[in-house]
């Protein structure tokens, strides 16, 4: 067969703009407006791919999202898309197109012999064999055979897809005749309509079927509708696929744009009209997958819209009147047409060879149709166009919760009224034909008579079903190679539920999402089990309506925009001071300063901080102001340690427990005055602590007597620590009031407040200096100069980690886990003494809370310089190995000159002084259990 281009037809193509691309290395010419499918068809290329399992040669079947066979890898410049449907990919110059699942190419695939083995590869054959060895021995071979296109490993998305949120009053999906009529009527009545269609132009089936509306060519009505919609404040969105219906009236739309990256829209629509038309069903006969077998509607589309004539001697097989238009159009275009109609009472076709009561039982040909067998007679032909009726496109209806009814008159599953708020019209509602489409569309929003047409209705048809008794292989799902025999086998083996059928045979699971195969499968299962279609059931429809690029759904959330970090006010200044940043608890913070190995720098910083002085940026520490007459009462309930007894001007360390008794957070609470506290939550727990405080405030304490303000992000806290702390602060010109340990005071500095809290996370004398963000740079600069004079250093979080570990201070979430209770950490006082209620109290007294095998906080001492790995487990020194706990933090201490380690150890405090095993990746060393505090155990440096 050779394809050809009709001299005049082809409303979508622009013959003045030639385009070309390569397909499997062969240069193919086309025009602007062509799809890959139409160009290939016009050039007579008929083997476009190979089937998934049997590697059968395949040509075009359909014209849009229903195409199961023509799937290509398409490259254009930087862009690469595997598994593109030829029917929906617009031809662009210089595209490099290759067939998938074929080697070296579709025409000469070396796996074509697979088809000879088909008898041994029935549906689900893999469940019955490949069991002699482990599956993984067979798997590489299977996996190489499977899959369609190829991922380009070097691919990087050239641009990101923006996500947009939109609201609309009336969304009409589909701009065929029914959608146009609905949009026209709604716009006329003043509604702001969004009219959406996945094609490039309005019109839908009208482009191929044509028609007169209100006495003129339909295009005049389409133009009038466009004008009316825009005039009423609506929008027209072409090249846009509404691919999902979600909760609360949200619809997702994939917008393809010629002048920029695609868009992903989340449209919240008050009212939605489904005008998505219908899809033509195939016919079932032997070799119905042969290249040259095509849908009637597709053949008409290719002829009228692209001028591509897909054959010269054409056999049309049908059982409905709609195909007659196709036959006469093809005949008019110069093809030799034979019309085979299953109906004995078929209408007469003028000027066309017609066979009534004609049953097509087989197609013949090796790689392309050469003849058709009709009523036992061979009829030579180079193309078979067939129609087994129409299936309404009800995806959105069903996604939104709508149910379906079997309509025997229309021979289709149609929307059951009242089961969804969406409004189906036209062919999507089972109302076939132009007249019905216009009428149902208009009736929704218009008064009186709608647009008139001279089109003939209704479209008479006889139901067509697969015939299990027919010899030969009849394809039900073309891409996944499921035949009618496979359906029979599934039924025999008990997979009679439609879902089981799908899963067992993979029917309907291909990239065409079952558009041509789902009804066929249902009808086939009904046929082989002797049930009706409604008895057999329906499958579930879920988004996406058609395959949507992952890049569209992902949008711009990657890189900088993926889980963004909070950033320090002084980030730029830290940068200038040589900071190297890392993520800690949702904030980007200096890990170390300077050039060189990170571990060495941290050691150096930790040493200088102990020997002289260090400053670190502690701004991410939460600052939740709890203000009101109920503040003390609130904090007493939410904290393990009581805070109402705290004196103004003082701070106290405390835990917040979850109701399960687990330590949720730790931190210092400052009391500034009688009614004003500040909770220093861990940087990563600010929101969580706030939520727990609010819960107790609103539900328990009384929301009018205490309020919570989170002012963390507006303030900057610089912590000065080390023996020369006082010198550094004094050298910065800050007049430090005399403060005891855990004292806090606010004093003015540079016209704003400076809050000084003498709190130590290092065990050395330390002051937290907190100022508003606008004063931070001034404070930093003063301190920096003074620090340099004193010989101190800015220290990063890695050094801070070492310093606090030397003292045995915990880090929530690192040194505690989801089982750690306060008494495990040595804080038994409140549990034993508090009579009042507090968060998590009751859980401390469960059998597990009181168990003697709880893991407790201890230190470990090792011999030698090798630091035991964090994450090592502790095990008994003899007897069977079992975990007694694990190391939560370990470092080399530059100040002690030896490794230190902290651990949670079963009954650990009682084991202090004994030896346990330390297990890491199979090797074991002995460690001594010691007190968690390794450095300055008598706390002499706190006031040093």
């Amino acid at each position: 067969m050779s394809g050809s281009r009709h001299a005049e037809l082809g409303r979508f193509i622009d013959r003045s703009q030639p385009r070309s691309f390569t397909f499997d290395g062969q240069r193919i010419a086309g025009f602007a407006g062509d799809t890959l499918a139409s160009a290939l068809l016009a050039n007579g290329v008929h083997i476009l791919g190979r089937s998934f399992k049997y590697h059968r040669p395949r040509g075009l079947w359909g014209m849009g999202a229903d195409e199961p066979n023509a799937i290509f890898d398409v490259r254009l410049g930087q862009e690469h898309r595997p598994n593109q449907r030829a029917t929906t990919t617009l031809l662009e110059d210089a595209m490099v197109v290759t067939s998938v699942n074929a080697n070296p190419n579709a025409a000469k695939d070396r796996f074509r012999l697979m088809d000879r083995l088909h008898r041994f590869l029935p549906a689900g054959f893999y469940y019955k064999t490949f069991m002699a060895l482990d599956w993984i021995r067979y798997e590489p071979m299977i996996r190489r055979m499977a899959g369609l296109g190829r991922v380009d490993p070097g691919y990087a998305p050239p641009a990101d897809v923006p996500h947009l949120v939109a609201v609309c009053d009336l969304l009409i999906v589909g701009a065929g005749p029914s959608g146009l009529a609905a949009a026209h009527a709604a716009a006329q009545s003043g509604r702001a309509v969004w009219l959406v269609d996945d094609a490039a132009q309005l019109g839908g089936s009208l482009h191929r079927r044509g028609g007169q509306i209100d006495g003129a060519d339909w295009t005049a009505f389409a133009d009038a509708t466009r004008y009316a919609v825009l005039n009423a404040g609506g929008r027209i969105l072409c090249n846009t696929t509404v691919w999902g219906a979600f909760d609360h009236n949200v619809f997702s739309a994939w917008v393809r744009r010629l002048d920029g990256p695609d868009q992903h829209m989340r449209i919240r629509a008050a009212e939605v009209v489904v005008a998505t038309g219908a899809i033509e069903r195939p016919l079932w006969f032997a070799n119905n997958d042969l290249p040259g077998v095509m849908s009637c509607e597709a053949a008409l589309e290719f002829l009228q819209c692209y001028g591509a004539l897909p054959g010269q001697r054409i056999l049309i097989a049908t059982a409905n009147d709609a195909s007659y238009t196709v036959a006469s159009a093809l005949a008019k275009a110069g093809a030799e047409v034979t019309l085979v109609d299953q109906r004995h009472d078929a209408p007469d076709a003028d000027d066309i060879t017609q066979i009534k009561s004609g049953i097509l039982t087989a197609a013949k040909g090796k790689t392309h149709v050469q003849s058709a067998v009709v009523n036992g007679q061979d009829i030579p032909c180079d193309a078979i166009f067939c129609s087994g009726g129409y299936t309404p496109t009800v995806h959105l209806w069903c996604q939104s919760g709508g149910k379906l009814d079997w309509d025997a008159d229309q021979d289709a599953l149609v929307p059951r009224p009242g089961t969804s708020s969406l409004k189906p019209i036209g062919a999507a509602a089972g109302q076939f034909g132009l007249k019905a489409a216009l009428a149902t569309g208009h009736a929704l929003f218009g008064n009186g008579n709608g647009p008139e047409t001279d089109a003939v209705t209704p479209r008479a048809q006889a139901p067509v079903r697969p015939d299990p008794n027919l010899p030969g292989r009849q394809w039900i799902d073309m891409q996944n190679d499921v035949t009618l025999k496979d359906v029979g086998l599934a039924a025999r083996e008990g997979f009679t539920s439609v879902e089981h059928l799908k899963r067992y045979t993979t029917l309907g699971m291909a990239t065409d999402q079952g558009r041509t195969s789902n009804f066929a499968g249902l009808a086939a299962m009904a046929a082989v089990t002797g049930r009706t279609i409604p008895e057999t059931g329906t499958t579930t429809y879920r988004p996406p309506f058609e395959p949507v690029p992952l890049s569209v759904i992902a949008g711009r959330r990657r890189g900088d925009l993926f889980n963004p970090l909070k950033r320090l006010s002084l980030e730029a200044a830290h940068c200038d001071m040589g900071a190297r940043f890392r993520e800690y608890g949702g904030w980007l913070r200096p890990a170390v300063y300077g050039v060189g190995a990170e571990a060495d720098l941290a050691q150096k910083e930790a040493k200088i901080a102990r020997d002289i002085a260090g400053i670190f940026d502690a701004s991410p520490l939460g600052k939740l102001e709890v203000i009101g007459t109920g503040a003390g009462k609130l904090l007493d309930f939410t904290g393990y340690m009581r805070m109402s007894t705290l004196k103004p001007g003082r701070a106290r360390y405390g835990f917040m427990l979850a109701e399960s008794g687990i330590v949720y957070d730790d931190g210092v609470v400052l009391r500034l005055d009688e009614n004003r506290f500040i909770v220093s939550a861990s940087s990563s727990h600010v929101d969580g602590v706030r939520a727990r405080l609010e819960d107790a405030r609103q539900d328990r304490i009384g929301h009018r007597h205490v309020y919570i303000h989170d002012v963390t992000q507006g303030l900057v806290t610089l912590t000065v620590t080390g023996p020369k702390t006082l010198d550094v602060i004094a050298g910065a010109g800050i007049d430090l009031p005399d403060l005891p340990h855990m004292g806090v005071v606010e004093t003015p500095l540079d016209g704003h407040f400076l809050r000084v809290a003498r709190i130590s996370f290092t065990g050395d004398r330390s002051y937290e200096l907190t100022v508003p963000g606008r004063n931070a740079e001034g404070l930093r600069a003063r301190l920096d100069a003074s620090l340099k004079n004193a010989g101190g250093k800015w220290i990063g979080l890695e050094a801070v980690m070492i310093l606090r570990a030397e003292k045995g201070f915990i880090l929530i979430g690192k040194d505690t886990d989801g089982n750690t209770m306060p008494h495990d950490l040595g804080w038994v006082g409140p549990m034993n003494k508090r009579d009042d209620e507090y968060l998590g109290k009751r859980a401390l007294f469960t059998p597990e809370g009181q168990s003697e095998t709880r893991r407790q906080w201890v230190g470990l001492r090792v011999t030698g310089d090798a630091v035991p790995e964090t994450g090592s487990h502790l095990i008994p020194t003899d007897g069977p190995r079992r975990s007694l706990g694990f190391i939560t933090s370990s470092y080399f201490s530059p100040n002690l000159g030896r490794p230190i380690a902290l651990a949670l150890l079963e009954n650990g405090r009682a084991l202090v002084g004994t030896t346990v095993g330390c297990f890491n990746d199979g090797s074991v060393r002995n460690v001594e259990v010691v007190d968690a505090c390794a450095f300055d155990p008598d706390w002499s440096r706190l006031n040093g």
Partner: protein
Amino acid sequence: MQHYSAFSLARHALSHHKNWQSAWRKADPKPRYDAVIIGGGGHGLSTAYYLAKNHGMKRVAVLERGWIGGGNTGRNTTAVRSNYFYPESVALYDLSLRLYEGLSKELNYNIMLSQRGMLIAAHTPIQMEICNRIANAMQLNGVDGRLMTAAEAEEKAPLVNKSKGARYKCMGGIWQDRAGTARHDAVAWGYARAASAMGIDIIENCEVTEVFTSSGAVAGVETTRGKIQTERLGVAAAGATPGLVQMVGGDLPIHNYDLQAFVSEPVKPCLDTVLLYLGTGTYVSQSDKGELVIGGGLDRVPTHGQKGNLPTQETVISGLLEMFPAFAQLKLLRQWAGVVDVVPDSSPVIGPVGPEGMFVNCGWGTGGFKAIPAGGYLLAHLLATGEHHDISRPFDLNRFAQGRLIDEAAGSGIAH
């Protein structure tokens, strides 16, 4: 039971596969059984199988309200693994993995267990320390787990994001060799076929509407297909379990959420392992058919609706592309949601509940598929003996009153 093999396939090919029998009998309910199992998913079917095989109980019915394997068994990302922290969890999940390892041969049904390994990838030094904690716990509990370096990880998944702008670099993580995937439907069908062959009645389209008790013990159930008497009732109905237990006045520590999964169009092999990124929470593997099978976090709105929602889809898919920028060239083919029954400590509830003779196996949350063999094995033990197996005892409902939760997320520190 007809034996399945390459030879039998060839033999049946000669008769055009016309002589294959139904994989499982389509049974009608009898008035009375020694034990009734509610739920024809993987857990219910494996319970029936092990009741017959391990305990010789064959007068047993599995009641399924729809079609077998149609719930979470057929709505997951098919990963199997035992990379857990607590000894109790490891005992449970590794029992499951060991049973999986022999299952194709045992059931004479290819469940396509593909032990291609799984990596839980870390991105910061602190996460690596926690991975080390888990890897060591696995080793001490006798399971193959180890800490993997960044270089090794890159070898396992060469397409991971290595660009300068990558939000999360793969620094390595926890590796388990024996982890992998299995064909989910085959697990349900294989158990059903083997159980049916031993005489168990698998009754589809049969919904339980009432549970009868008599003097504090189970007496039977009312169903849409009639009344059935039994004194032993096993419930393995995932999200429907709380409703069934409430029929006899009990409550369970369960919330139901949607868990979504996603499948891309099939492509030639491009990922040969199961990979979970701690940073994105997205996990992915490639099926034998070539599709990427993608999962992520829960939709955090309690629901019984089995319907995925957009925000979670966007989060999971953006996570995938952050891990593998090259996958941006692929398309989403299918998406679905399963209603998962989530317990506060994310560990299952296995044990007696309510009247005497009633036992549940539920609360698997996002991890039920990998536990199917063990879940059935242990529930069968309870139903047959009335007593816990040592492995199921820690998972009894009484752990909540004792405060003895088995919280993996908390134990590993990863989700804490």
